[in-house]
């Protein structure tokens, strides 16, 4: 079957999608949209969290065919959505709070946090912990993530917006050397 999906505003299509293929495989392996992470393919970790027509889902549990003609939002589209070209305030809050270590959970965690703040604009710590419990992180002990979500909810948005340009994204930083040159 042929399907097409709009991901972060751009339309992608695929031929010969097989019955058991997940939206996650479609995004990552067919379209190279590797901002969506795969840590379990069992719906247990939340690394693959995306929005499907605005609803938060685990992409590994969604059959690719169900995404036909629908819209998917990933972390790669988050910053651009209504917030200028830079990082989304939730992403910035994660950076400021030290909520990123290995970062493997971060794309899914940020998606879930952003969704939470839409629903509950100023969550308590207990609410953050209950609502984001479907997203596993093995590095941070969650403390900094909870702090980040609450700070994104609170008054830190403006401060976070200001200094994006200072970015610590090192030139020549090549641990994770990435695509072959």
């Amino acid at each position, binding site marked *: 079957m042929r399907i097409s999906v709009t991901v972060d505003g751009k339309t992608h299509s695929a031929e010969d999608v097989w019955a058991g293929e997940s939206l996650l495989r479609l995004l*990552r*392996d067919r379209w*190279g949209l*590797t*901002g969506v*992470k*795969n*840590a*379990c*393919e*069992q719906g*247990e*970790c939340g690394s693959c969290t995306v929005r499907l027509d605005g609803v938060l889902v685990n992409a590994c549990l969604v059959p690719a065919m169900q995404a036909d003609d629908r819209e998917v939002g990933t*972390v*790669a589209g*988050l910053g651009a959505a209504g917030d200028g070209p830079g*990082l989304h305030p939730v*992403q910035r809050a*994660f*950076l400021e709070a*030290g*909520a*990123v*270590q*290995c*970062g*493997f959970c*971060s794309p899914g965690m*940020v998606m879930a946090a952003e969704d939470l703040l839409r629903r509950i604009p100023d969550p308590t*710590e207990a609410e*953050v*912990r*209950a609502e*984001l*419990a*479907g*997203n*596993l*992180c*093995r*590095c*941070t*002990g*969650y*403390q*900094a993530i*909870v702090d980040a979500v609450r700070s994104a909810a609170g008054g830190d948005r403006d401060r976070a917006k200001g200094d994006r340009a200072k*970015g*610590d*994204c*090192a030139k*020549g*930083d*090549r*641990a*994770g*050397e*990435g*695509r*072959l040159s």
Partner: protein
Amino acid sequence: MNDVIGGSPRRADGAAKISGVFEYSSDLVCDGMVWAATLRSPHAHARILAIDTEPARKLAGVRDVITHEDIPGRKLYGQMMVDQPVLAGDVVRYHGEPVAVVAAEDPETARLAAELIRVDYEVLTPVTDPVAATAPDSPAVHPGGNVLARKVIRRGSAQNGEFPQAAVVVRGEYTVGMQDHVFLGTESGLAVPDGDGGVRLHVATQWPHVDQEQVAASLGLDSDQVVVSMAGVGGAFGGREDLSVHIPACLIALRLGRPVKMVYSRTESFFGHVHRHPAVLRYEHGADPDGRLVYVKAEIFLDGGAYASSSPAIAGNAATHAVGPYAVPHVHAEAVAVYTNNPPCGAMRGFGTVQPCFGFESQMDRLAEAVGIDPVEIRLRNALSEGGSLPTGQVLDSAAPVAELLTRLRALPVPERTSDDPAIVRGVGYASCLKNAMFSEGFDDHSTANVRLRVVGGAPVATVTSAAAEVGQGVLGVKRQIVRTELGVAEVEVVGADTRFPSAGPASASRQTYMVGGAVRAACLEVREEVFALARARLGGSLAEHRDLAEHWDLAEDSVVDAAGEPLIGLAELLGETVIDRTSRFHHRTTEPLDPVNGQGDSAVTFGFAAHRAVVDVDLELGLVQVVELAIAQDVGRAVNPLALRGQLAGGTVQGVGLALMEELQVADGQVLNPSLSGYLIPTMADVPSVNVDLLELADPHAPYGIRGIGELPAISSTAAVAAAVRAATGRAVSRVPIRPEDLVDFS
């Protein structure tokens, strides 16, 4: 400046990670690549009678199938003992052992084809009990017998096999389950043939240089024909010290002349790396009537599983850390690592010290009860301090603030109970630990870094290059902070290196900030000297007064400055076309192997100290434990990046809570029962409370910047603290972790 040592700059790779553009090893792609998948043994112990790969080869899209016969070089690998087959040949020794690898045009075909391979097994009885496996008449997993390492420490009268009388004696046997790292990024890599008979492997690893040696040996190549590059790492915690995808991916790439990608599924990841050793610990503590320790006897069995991995060093750590951060005049401690047909066990955060910590801390609680004093008081009475000595005889020659850490924790308020349900009981528990950092027992550990200083576009730029593995701990940022601190240059580039650059050593043993930091600093100091030499030559007589002050010169804000911080000359002007380029290799101070008879010797470079307090509520009807509050106090020597450091301490603490309450890879008759995230549970955000982090900074005078290795300590005493809290709440012995409901409630 926030980006020097002691500041908390944001992560160097943080923006890329948070926006999804950072490439982990599983994200790498290359034109023309094939995908490889592994066939693993369904049996814990079996003789391989025949392997028929034809059904796999016939499947459309399959490009290659390899078995043990196809390994051109050394068929075994291993970091410390070369005993692990790349692919099993005549016999399989654990459930999940790799037997064959298939490469195909897409991952589904590769997995499907692997399942089509027919292997005839003669199933054998597995050896699964590590204590029974040490008996002389036990069937042997390897020809040399089942004791793969035995480390003995004898101190005081224990050297003669004697122990003084003690007024109070407590004994206990403790059990620790098999914990898994569960790093979120599963094992993965991409091998690319170089066209000249060599191969380049992009892989998530903790030490590319040691991977390189092992891969080359099995491929039958010279080391320089194999280049190992760090790919983005999604967590490590010790689980990436051993090889996984490395050799098969490289071998198939060479055979096909095509790039090969391998990514483990989560289930395969549980089979594809070593775990934390399950342990049985038998302890006897003797004390005087006031609870001061007189002697400790400890017997520790570590289930090493089917292959050695780093078990010998882990047994060494278990023995040397067997009594914890307490002063004990007479010690007999013995740690035995045993071969069984269980999954292989190896390095995991804490490296042989987590298991004894649960044992000795449980004993301290028992002793407190027997003496009739408070659990903190018993620890304070026995706490080691600077100048004290360990069971190895090694004297602690820098701060050892065990008492202070515990006292700080005790001073924290205990949160109010919120439930008046009598079935919910509250308990508070304490535990403390010490941990060696860097490599011990005489290993010559070193790290190399290069620092270049030059002018680009009118401004000085420093570039630091090293092969240090960034596994999430933040070493990239540490390197930059050090360069900014030493060279006062605003623009610092941090460049990762592959195995064509000298080794930085591994991201393990809590060593990297110390060792890589030491190397970067040493290179910076040479660059500084050269800058000052240039400045002296340039400024000459016109600033003669400054010449006398040369040793007081510094570098700051892109300039050479005098003692008062006044700029003497800008670096851009001073350097002009000159490029200063220095490579430095840093060694830590030497250590000794332990005496094989009595285990005496200065075997460790340095120690860190931590303590935890846990507050729990236990439901006495359901046997469920809710952790209400966690606190850690740790001496970090010097906080290079306090924000990142707090994150490490919180993260390690929660891993330890996982071992206390829920994490266990269950193995029965050698079969792994729960290799999935639905069967093996790690703490979620809802399972743990906030972590109160208290940093003590007592600089280690022997260390670069006074830093102590910090990464492992938070994962050591947290397990024991939670167990102590449950013990305090319930009055139960709590002699096994993870704690199960049936340990707390009689369900019969």
